[in-house]
């Protein structure tokens, strides 16, 4: 521990703490701009200058480590003058005219810093050099004229997302934020996660959807989770007058710790499907608007008229799935199918049953992995935040080994990429497992079998065997991701005490397994199909299965080929309009909260099922918690 004095306050902090963080612990506020709690200190803006007794010049507190008996002053005339000078230099470098900026009036950290220093003007004028605006990206606008060169975006892109798209070229006042080697952002390797936008202190990186829609002081914030995939990232949903303004990652989020991907941040704004706004009932061959009471009566009549099959979306909450299950049970449905047909979970479930215990780890366990093995689906597409955990470890020297059967978003990142025929991936991983165990491994022979490089194979095996904490990421949504591959991967991981996660499918994939409703669709002998798709966007291939269904009762948020063929369509809320619990891929029971109020006549899935249950004289308990007591593929965390 180190003792120091900051503004007359004595404080004891851990060795290696920065003066800035020590000051924060002592309750002394030092203004900052380039500093961000989630990022490595950079010392670029010089706003955090402090006086250190004995030092010749003012020192940046964000990068200066504490030392014993240090005496620090943070609020002297000299420092205040220096801050004003620093801010004047930043303001005069580019076009920082406040009246026409989207973040002006509360959201701009540069403007707020000037206010804090009581600045009424800039003592020197700008240099009037115009910089370009890059509006080539579908979601993000990069306005170089507002950039203060703090490099928060560059650090976020590398340290948090691991994508390393952003960087700087040129020097001094000519320094320019570039994507890749100077490509327009829209043509670059940017994956559109928007983390750079979230950390930008000025209006230099803004997103198209939320710009000029409302400032932080004017919006309501709902802390909820993203339902885009099985990860369940914590997000802040910003709304104004029941309108979606912006979605941001929650830095306190227990799964994602602040990072989210384009699916959670931007795609909800790009929703092109039309909403179902009123119940519809087929009369004389045509769908006609009906009241809820009439539509539910027709639906109740249909489901009592013959053999019923039921299919539910794995995007539905535990409450909704349980209610659906109870309705179906009363109608004599034996097996409830899901929209992902158990495909993304069956391998893990089979292995857990075989081994008799939970074998998967939590995502957070992969944070300090010293080697990664990535298998199955392209996680950079379907479960992007999981891929961030892998990619951002690479600069610290963590080797990443990928076994894929086609091109993948990790190709440019992985240290070792093995392209193996789809049918042979399980065999290949078994080979890796055996090579790890053998005293005299025959790399040439093994490499030949799979058509991969023997040197690479040797290095990869050495990387795995040299690791103390192997992280295995099993992408479940892949043709190759069968039980054989998972078994091989799980055994390899268990042999060397590695940690394994499987990505599964939708947000409530695992919850649906626990409720026993994540089964393959079989509607061949059904007279009536009860289909609850919620707001899920289904593939054409999946929807084809329902082409020949005579009587389809569908609960849906959006218009689709399915609703067009249905006998009864009941409008339900989308993910932003309803709350509920979900079991994410690593077994966390997460709660979502409604951020928007639904239109009149659109009900939550639970309420919609309850209406149908009422017509069937059925009481719904919606007690889903018991289902989580059964053993699982991963420990369930309530």
């Amino acid at each position: 521990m180190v003792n120091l004095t900051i503004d007359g306050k004595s404080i004891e902090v851990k060795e290696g703490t920065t003066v800035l963080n020590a000051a924060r612990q002592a309750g002394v506020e030092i203004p900052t701009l380039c500093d961000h709690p989630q990022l490595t200190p950079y010392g670029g803006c010089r706003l955090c200058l402090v006086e250190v007794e004995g030092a010749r010049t003012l020192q940046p507190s964000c990068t200066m480590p504490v030392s014993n008996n240090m005496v620090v002053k943070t609020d002297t005339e000299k420092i205040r003058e220096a801050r004003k000078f620093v801010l004047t230099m930043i303001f005069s470098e580019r076009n920082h005219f406040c009246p026409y900026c989207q973040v002006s009036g509360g959201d701009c950290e540069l403007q707020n810093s000037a206010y804090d220093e009581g600045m009424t003007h800039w003592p020197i004028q700008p240099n009037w050099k115009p910089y370009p605006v890059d509006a080539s990206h579908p979601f993000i606008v990069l306005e170089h004229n507002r950039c203060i060169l703090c490099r928060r975006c560059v650090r976020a892109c590398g340290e948090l997302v691991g994508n390393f798209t952003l960087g700087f070229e040129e020097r001094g006042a000519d320094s320019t934020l570039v994507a890749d080697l100077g490509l327009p952002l829209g043509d670059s390797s940017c994956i559109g996660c928007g983390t750079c936008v979230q950390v930008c202190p000025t209006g230099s990186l803004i997103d198209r959807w939320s710009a000029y829609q409302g400032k932080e002081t004017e919006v309501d914030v709902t802390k909820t989770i993203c339902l885009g995939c099985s990860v369940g990232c914590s997000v802040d949903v910003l709304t104004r007058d029941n309108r979606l303004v912006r979605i941001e990652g929650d830095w306190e989020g227990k799964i994602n710790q602040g990072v989210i991907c384009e699916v959670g941040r931007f795609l909800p704004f790009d929703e092109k499907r039309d909403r179902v706004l009123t119940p519809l009932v087929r009369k004389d061959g045509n769908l006609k608007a009906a009241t809820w009471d009439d539509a539910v009566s027709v639906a109740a009549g249909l489901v009592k008229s013959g053999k019923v099959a039921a299919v539910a979306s794995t995007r539905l909450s535990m409450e909704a799935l349980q209610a659906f299950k109870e309705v179906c049970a009363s109608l004599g449905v034996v097996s409830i199918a899901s929209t992902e047909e158990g495909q993304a979970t069956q391998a893990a479930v089979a292995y857990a049953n075989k081994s008799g215990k939970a074998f998967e780890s939590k995502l957070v366990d992969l944070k300090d992995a010293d080697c990664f093995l990535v298998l199955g689906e392209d996680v950079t597409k379907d479960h992007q935040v999981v891929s961030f955990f892998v990619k951002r470890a690479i600069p610290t020297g963590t080797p990443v080994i990928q076994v894929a059967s086609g091109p993948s978003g990790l190709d440019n990142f992985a240290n070792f990429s093995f392209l193996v025929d789809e049918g042979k991936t399980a065999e290949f991983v078994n080979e890796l497992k055996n090579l790890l165990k053998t005293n005299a491994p025959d790399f040439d022979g093994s490499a030949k079998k799979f058509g991969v490089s023997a040197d690479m194979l040797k290095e990869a095996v050495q990387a795995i065997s040299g690791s103390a904490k192997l992280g295995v990421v099993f992408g479940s949504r892949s043709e190759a991701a069968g039980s054989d591959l998972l078994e091989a991967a799980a055994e390899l991981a268990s042999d060397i005490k590695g940690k394994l996660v499987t990505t599964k499918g939708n947000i409530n994939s695992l919850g649906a397994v626990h409720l026993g409703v994540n089964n393959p669709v079989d509607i061949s002998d059904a007279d009536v199909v009860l289909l609850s798709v919620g707001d899920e966007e289904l593939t054409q291939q999946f929807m084809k299965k329902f082409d020949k269904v005579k009587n389809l009762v569908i609960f849906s948020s959006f218009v689709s080929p399915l609703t067009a063929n249905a006998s009864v369509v009941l409008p339900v809320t989308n993910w932003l309009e309803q709350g509920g619990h979900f079991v994410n891929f690593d077994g966390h029971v997460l709660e979502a909260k409604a951020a928007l109020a639904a239109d009149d006549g659109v009900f939550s899935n639970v309420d919609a099922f309850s209406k149908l249950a009422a017509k069937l004289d059925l009481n719904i308990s919606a007690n889903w918690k018991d289902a989580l007591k059964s053993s699982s593929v991963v420990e369930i965390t309530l």
Partner: protein
Amino acid sequence: MAKPTVASDWLAGCAGCHMSFLDIDERIAQLVELVDLRATPITDLKHPDKEGVTVGILEGGINNTYNEEVAKQMRERSQILVALGDCAVFGGVPAMRNFFTLEESLRRAYVETPSTDASGKIPSSPELAVPTRVRAVHEVVPVDVFIPGCPPDADIIFFALAELAQGRIPKLENKNLMWN
């Protein structure tokens, strides 16, 4: 003691700051009890008194030689010179043209605009003021009080004038300090 005198003028701005000043509404009655309003764009007197005024207020940036003259005269005749609004304080919206050359801006304004017919040409009469780069007032003459804002809120203007009327230099902070 005689009431403090106040004069104002507008330069390269939109008159919005003066409109915001008028938005103090009935409080103008309070103000004229405290001060003697002299030359302003909205009163009959057009030049600050030769004998000088206590407070001179300038709205707008300085974008030509005429603005320079007005600013210099106001400076000479005022004990305290106030830069009112973002254009006077920073250059503001007119300063956007500084990102281009003067020739480009003039050509855009007088020749290239869709509403200009083929006879459009850049005025060149020697009687006209000569355009310059747009400058904040303090680049041309020393300024004593800066009131940023686009426009500054009527409440901020009233606060600043009330302080000046009572012989104090206004200190803008918290909600009274806004650059947008």
